[in-house]
C-alpha cells in the first residue's frame, strides 16, 4: 500500500496535473494556431492558413534589431553574472566567511526587490552620476538581477562535489587557481552552463528594468510591449511569439537534460 497516495488519489492528482498542464500550454497553442491565421484580428472563426506573418517578421528590420540588442545584452550580462556568481559561490562554500548570513542576504536580495523599484533606482543613479542610458546600463542592471540565480545554481553544486578531490589537488602541490581550473571547474561546468542559460533567458526576457534604463535602444521585450499596441503588427508579433517560445522550450529542455547527463557522467551525484 502506498503511504502517500491511494489509487483514487493518484488518479485524481494525475487528472489534475494533466488539466493544469493543458491550461498552461493552451494559450501557447492558441498563439500557434493564430500565427498561421489569415486575418489581422485573432478571433474565431479562423480565416485560412497563411505563412504571411512569419515572412513579415523575418523581413522586419526593427524587430531583428531589437532581437539583436537583446541578445547582446543577454550575452554580456550573463557572462558577468556567471563570473561574479562563481566568485561568490566559491567564497561561500569553500571559505570561512565572517558575517556569512549577511553577505548571503545581500547577494540574494535582488531576488526580492520589485523590478519597478529597482528600475527607478538605477534610473536615478545614472541620472545622478551622469552616465547616459544605453546598452551598458541595461547590462549593469541585468547582472544584478541574474546574480542571485547563478549563485542559487552554483552553490548546491559546489556543495555536492567531494571536497577531498580538491584537497588532493593541493596535496599534489597545485595552487588554488590551478586546482580550481583543473579540478573544480570541470566538475561544476554543467552548473555553470545552467547558470549561464538561466541568466541569459532572464535578461533576454526582462522588460521592467530595461524599460527604465535602456535609453533610445530597443530590446526585444520593449519592442514587444509597444508592438502589443499596434493592431496591424499583432499577427507578426504572434508569429514571433511562437518562434521564441518554441526555441526557449527546446533550449530549456536540452539544457536540463544535458545538465543531468553531464552530472551523472561526472559521477559525483550523491547516493
Amino acid at each position: 500500500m502506498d503511504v502517500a497516495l491511494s489509487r483514487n488519489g493518484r488518479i485524481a492528482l494525475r487528472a489534475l496535473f494533466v488539466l493544469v498542464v493543458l491550461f498552461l500550454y493552451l494559450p501557447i497553442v492558441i498563439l500557434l494556431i493564430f500565427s498561421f491565421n489569415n486575418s489581422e484580428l485573432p478571433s474565431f472563426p479562423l480565416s485560412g492558413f497563411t505563412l504571411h506573418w512569419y515572412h513579415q517578421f523575418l523581413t522586419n528590420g526593427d524587430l531583428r534589431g531589437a532581437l539583436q540588442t537583446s541578445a547582446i545584452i543577454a550575452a554580456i550580462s550573463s557572462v558577468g553574472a556567471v563570473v561574479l556568481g562563481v566568485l561568490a559561490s566559491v567564497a561561500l562554500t569553500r571559505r570561512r566567511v565572517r558575517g556569512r548570513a549577511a553577505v548571503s542576504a545581500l547577494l540574494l536580495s535582488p531576488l526580492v526587490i520589485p523590478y519597478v523599484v529597482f528600475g527607478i533606482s538605477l534610473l536615478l543613479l545614472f541620472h545622478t552620476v551622469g552616465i547616459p542610458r544605453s546598452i551598458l546600463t541595461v547590462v549593469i542592471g541585468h547582472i544584478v538581477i541574474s546574480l542571485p540565480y547563478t549563485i542559487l545554481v552554483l552553490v548546491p553544486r559546489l556543495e555536492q562535489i567531494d571536497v577531498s578531490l580538491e584537497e588532493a589537488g593541493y596535496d599534489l602541490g597545485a595552487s588554488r587557481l590551478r586546482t580550481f581550473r583543473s579540478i573544480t571547474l570541470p566538475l561544476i561546468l554543467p552548473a555553470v552552463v545552467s547558470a549561464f542559460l538561466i541568466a541569459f533567458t532572464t535578461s533576454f526576457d526582462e522588460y521592467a528594468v530595461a524599460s527604465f534604463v535602456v535609453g533610445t535602444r530597443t530590446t526585444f521585450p520593449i519592442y514587444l510591449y509597444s508592438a502589443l499596441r499596434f493592431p496591424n503588427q499583432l499577427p507578426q508579433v504572434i508569429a514571433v511569439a511562437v518562434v521564441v517560445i518554441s526555441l526557449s522550450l527546446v533550449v530549456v529542455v536540452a539544457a536540463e537534460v544535458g545538465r543531468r547527463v553531464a552530472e551523472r557522467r561526472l559521477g559525483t551525484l550523491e547516493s
Partner: protein
Amino acid sequence: MPEEKDLLERRLSREDLLRLAAVTGGAGLVAGRTGLARAASAHLAKETGRLQVLDWAGYGNDGGQSMFAQYVKTHPQNKPRFTYMGNEADALAKIHAGLKPDLFRPYVGWVKYFATSGLVQPWDPALISNFKHLNPYMVKAGQYGGKQYGIPDDWGFDAILYRSDKVKPKAKSWGLLFDERYKGKIAWYDDITMIQAAGLYLGFKNTWNQTDDQLKQSQKLLISKKHLVRKIWSSETDLWQLFGSSDVWIAYAWPNDWVQMKKKGLKVVYMRPKEKPIAWVGMFMLLKGTSRPQLAHAYVDAWSSAKSAKWLEDNYGYGHANTIARPSSSDLLRALQLTNLRAVTEPNAYMDRDIPRRALYAKTWEQVKAS
C-alpha cells in the same frame, strides 16, 4: 570674372548679414574683419556637427524622414540626430539631466512654461522662409512677451469619437464620456487634459486654471465616472485596436482616429461638443546656448514646407500649420476644418494653453487613476 565674383559676394553678404543678425553673441567676429562676407561665411562654418533633435517617436529616423528630407539634402554634413521624448515632462527631465538638444517640440500648453524657464530662446522668423505660410492664429499661440518662442507644426483637436450604430448621445457634449448608459464601452485619454474636459463639461470659466474647489469637483466627477471606462488609452494605436475590436464605442479622440476608424468600415461620428473641443498645436522650441541655431532654423524651415505638411497630413493624420498644404483625404480635410484658419481658436475651439498649476493638475490626475 570679376563681375560674377562681385555678384556672388553680394549675394553671400545679404544672406550672411541676415544670419549674423540672428545670432546672439559672437558679434566680435564681425569687428575688424575685412569683408562681411568672409566673416559671415567663417561664422557659418562654425556650426558643425550633427543637429541634435529631441522629438516624439515617429518623427525621427524611425519614420519621419520625409519631414526633414529637404534639410538633409541641403545640409548633408549636419544630419539630425534624434533622442526621443515620451512627453514634455520626460523632455524636461532629460534636459535637466544633462541632455543638450539644439531644438525640441513640446506642445502649445507648455510654451509659456518653457519661455519663462530660461531653457529656451526665441526664433528669428526671418530665417524661416516658410514662416509666412503658417497659420497666423497658431503663430500667435507660439509667442510670449512679443517674441516667437514656438514655431507651430502639427496640430489637431481633442473631441469625442463614437459609434453611431451603437450610441445615441443625449447631447453634443463632453458629457458623453461620462454617460452611465455606456458602461464599459468608454475610453479616456491618459493625460491631464481629462481634467480640462471635465472642467469644460462642468462649465468652469477657465478650465486651465481651476480653483482648488473646482479641481476637487473635476476630480470627483472623474473618479465617480471611472467605473464606466474600459481603458485609459495612451497610444493612438491602442485606441484603434479598442475601437476596431468593438471593445469601446466612445472615446476621447483626435481627428485622425475618426479617419482611421472610418477606413476600417466602422460607422463613426467625430462629435464637436457644445462646450467646445480643445485644439492642440506642436511647437518647435530652440534651446538656449545651442551651438547650431542656424541649422535649427533650417531644420524647422524644412519641416514647415508645404511638401512636408502634406506628407504629415497624409501619413500621420494630423493637421499642419502650413496653410497651403492639403491632405489627400477629404474626410481628414473636413475633420480638421482645414479651410477655416480660425478653426483652432474661439469661437470654434479652445486652444490648449498654459496651466499655471500644472503640477497640481498632474497630481490630481494621477490620483484619479489610483482611486
